């Protein structure tokens, strides 16, 4: 922990008065002596497994800072951190049923999900687009009629395609991958001609693929989505701690550094650089942190 983090943790402790009685997640963490982070296997570069099969990434780092804050508040320096791999399909039930305390992945904060779970302030903003093989010549949604299109099960890409004006009346043949890497494999092995997903994930999958030069991210932006760390609903004490920790990272400038480390520098496993500059939306969110859902982004 560097000085700044230490200071931050101190601030957090000051900001969150010790409750007479802990409830919810904090109580669970104290009782079990451990906190479980939900991690992804191929959500580049937010949360994925490196070549040692350890979870790494931008959101993993953010979560580790939150864990530091939890340790400080509960005065449990030896708190055990466990990892549970989750997928797009089971992450919400696993947070809901208590298996996972903090989901550090690539989850879009939207209104439907806010009925089931809560989100930390938005720490990343993504654009939903599609990856194709350059050789295919595909540049837009309306070229996909009758073609197989890969999606990750549990995500909403196909609904977004149908909802987009260029996707109206087009017959997409959906091909499912159980995680992003599986869906990308569909594109790589020509089972699908396009893979519709968050652009950062597509960029990450492309740089770590066998032949990065063969692929391009093309087409319309189907949706702008705030990505955030997910936690259980109706747990104000834990939410307050998480929010304070994340906002602290934003105010101290540490989030910028983490961003640079994961989006603008070489990252494992292949030491490739995504070169993915911070969007204006995220810059604005760091100035004015909030946990507003995707719907509020796409209204304008």
């Amino acid at each position, binding site marked *: 922990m560097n000085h700044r983090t230490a200071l931050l943790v101190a601030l957090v402790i000051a900001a969150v008065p010790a409750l007479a009685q802990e409830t919810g997640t904090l109580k669970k963490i104290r009782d079990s002596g451990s906190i479980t982070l939900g991690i992804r296997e191929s959500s580049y570069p937010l949360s994925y497994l490196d070549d040692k099969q350890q979870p790494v990434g931008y959101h993993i780092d953010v979560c580790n800072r939150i864990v530091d804050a939890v340790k400080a508040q509960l005065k449990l320096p030896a708190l055990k951190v466990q990892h549970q791999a989750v997928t797009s*399909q*089971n992450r*919400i*039930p696993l947070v*809901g*049923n*208590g298996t996972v305390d903090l989901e550090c992945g690539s989850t879009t904060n939207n209104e*439907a999900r806010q009925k*089931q779970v809560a989100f930390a302030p938005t720490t990343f903003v993504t654009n939903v687009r599609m990856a194709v093989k350059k050789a295919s010549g595909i540049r837009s949604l309306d070229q996909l009629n009758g*073609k*197989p299109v890969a999606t990750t*099960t*549990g995500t*909403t890409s196909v*609904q977004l395609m149908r909802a987009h004006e260029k996707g109206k009346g087009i017959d997409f043949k959906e*091909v*499912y*991958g*159980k995680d992003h890497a599986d869906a990308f*494999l569909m594109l790589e*092995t*020509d*089972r*699908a*001609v396009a893979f519709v997903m968050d652009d950062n994930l597509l960029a990450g999958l492309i740089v770590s693929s066998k032949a990065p030069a063969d692929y391009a991210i093309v087409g319309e932006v189907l949706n702008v989505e705030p990505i955030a760390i997910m936690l259980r609903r109706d747990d104000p004490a834990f939410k307050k701690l998480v929010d304070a920790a994340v906002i602290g990272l934003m105010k101290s400038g540490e989030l910028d550094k983490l961003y640079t480390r994961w989006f603008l520098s070489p990252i494992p496993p292949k030491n490739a650089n995504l070169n993915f500059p911070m969007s204006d939306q995220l810059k604005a969110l760091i100035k004015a942190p909030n946990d507003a859902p995707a719907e509020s982004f796409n209204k304008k």
Partner: protein
Amino acid sequence: MNYHWNWGIFLEPVKSGDETYLDWLITGLGWTLAVSLTAWLIALCIGIAVGALRTTPSRLLVMLGNAWVELFRNIPLLVQMFLWFFVAPEFLPREWSLWVKQDMPAKEFITAALCLGFFTSSRVAEQVRAGVGSLPRGQHDAALALGLTLGQAYRHVILPQALRIVIPPLTSEFMNVFKNSSVAFAIGVLELTFQARQMQEDSEQGIETYLAVTLLYFICAFTANRVMALIEARTRVPGLIGKPA
């Protein structure tokens, strides 16, 4: 933890479209039945043939039959699904491979049905071999003495009796096919287990979802059991000890 029961959930529309959750489950049941029944047909045809091969006097045929059974019995079904879906097409010539991967209609279904059919055929073959082995040697000899060729003896004398004897163990294999078809979710067949996972994620009513799907599987297995019992009663070999139906 409080759980909010909502049995009306099945009639509610899904979040992302205009179908209801019930529609999802019905689609799922349809694919489960399609995969299971196709696979069972494949398993019976291949299983009976391979099982019979393993009882012939030819060393080579026995070895081929044994190899088939050991190959499909000793690799987990899930891994076999991946082998057929991801690995097998890579061995085809480029154009064929592309066709299989992009244009072949219902490719997930065909892959799953073939894979489950081959997997089950090794189990059927085991039972058929045991059934043939349990026949008195005299049946075989008498058939040959009557001037039947070996092929004719199998077709008219040995297999008709052996198959009727092995109906009880085949019943449990038939029930297993429905259960094993659930593994097909892993390669993207939209069958019941796939729909259950999707519905639980979309609706947040996990308990209702899994209860309904469990019940549907139970009904499938039970129906399979009754159908086989009916066949068993109709085809009992006269003169053998058998449980009354």
